[in-house]
């Protein structure tokens, strides 16, 4: 029988992978994907806690996280596209001015 701590440890490792991805990569799209990975790791934590405590609030919260993540992806990719249009680059090092 798998214990909650094992799911939670796996979620923590996935979250850490996302953190390392954000810290090491330069490509803004990959950084964005790492953020999605972190959000999903937290979702796994929430669902695990929901089953651990025997109620559905955690699942509903994970559902709301998915909604917010969808909205965030739409806006974020639009920003990446408009930056790319100006700078011809998806590297976060090239986007260092807020206005130009």
């Amino acid at each position: 029988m798998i214990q909650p701590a094992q799911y939670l440890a796996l979620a923590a490792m996935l979250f850490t992978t996302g953190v390392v991805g954000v810290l090491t990569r330069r490509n803004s799209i990959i950084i964005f994907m790492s953020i999605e990975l972190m959000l999903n790791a937290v979702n796994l934590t929430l669902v695990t806690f929901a089953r651990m405590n025997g109620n559905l609030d955690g699942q509903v919260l994970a559902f709301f996280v998915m909604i917010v993540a969808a909205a965030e992806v739409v806006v974020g990719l639009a920003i990446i596209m408009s930056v790319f249009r100006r700078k011809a680059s998806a590297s976060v090092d090239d986007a260092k001015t807020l206005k130009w």
Partner: protein
Amino acid sequence: MEKYVFWVMAFLSLGSAILMIRARNPIHSALLLVLNFFTLSVFYVLLDAHFLAAVQVIVYAGAIMVLFLFVIMLLGVDRDDVVEERIPLQYPLAILLGLAFAGIAVWTLHTTVGGAQFRGIEAANQGGNVEAVGRVLFTKYMFPFEVASVLLIVAAIAAMVLGRRREEEETASLIGDSTPDGREPAREPAKVGDER
């Protein structure tokens, strides 16, 4: 049974995540992330969250990752990105701090919920998980649910506003000259020139 599925999926999940942040080609990263989302969906099934498992596949692996792949291919950034280190010791420090973070998180989990068992969600899932989640969503969480719909509309409008080309850019690209106010012309990459 749950044990074997868990360990196989945990291996796949962590492996795809680590390969995802290491892949040089963004398309490979996106596809590995899709694999990661599928394994998370399997975990949701193991945790009796059937509704979220379906939503995970439909929304994340379906919609969001297609959007990612669409943007990657539209921008044409599917080539190796620059790997030079601008900050000294960035990679070793990032990995070291990451391992430290994981260690702290796992240790905290071990000390707080180390011996905890699943209470089981069968009672709350009476009559099916989808029905139960729907009942909670439309009674206890009615207001956040409606606010979420507003958020999605705002996000859609924001994407339209951000994705729009400004009129001065259009004239600049038509003339092929500098913009009216004398700024540098927007450097258009060859690969996104199909709008003209």
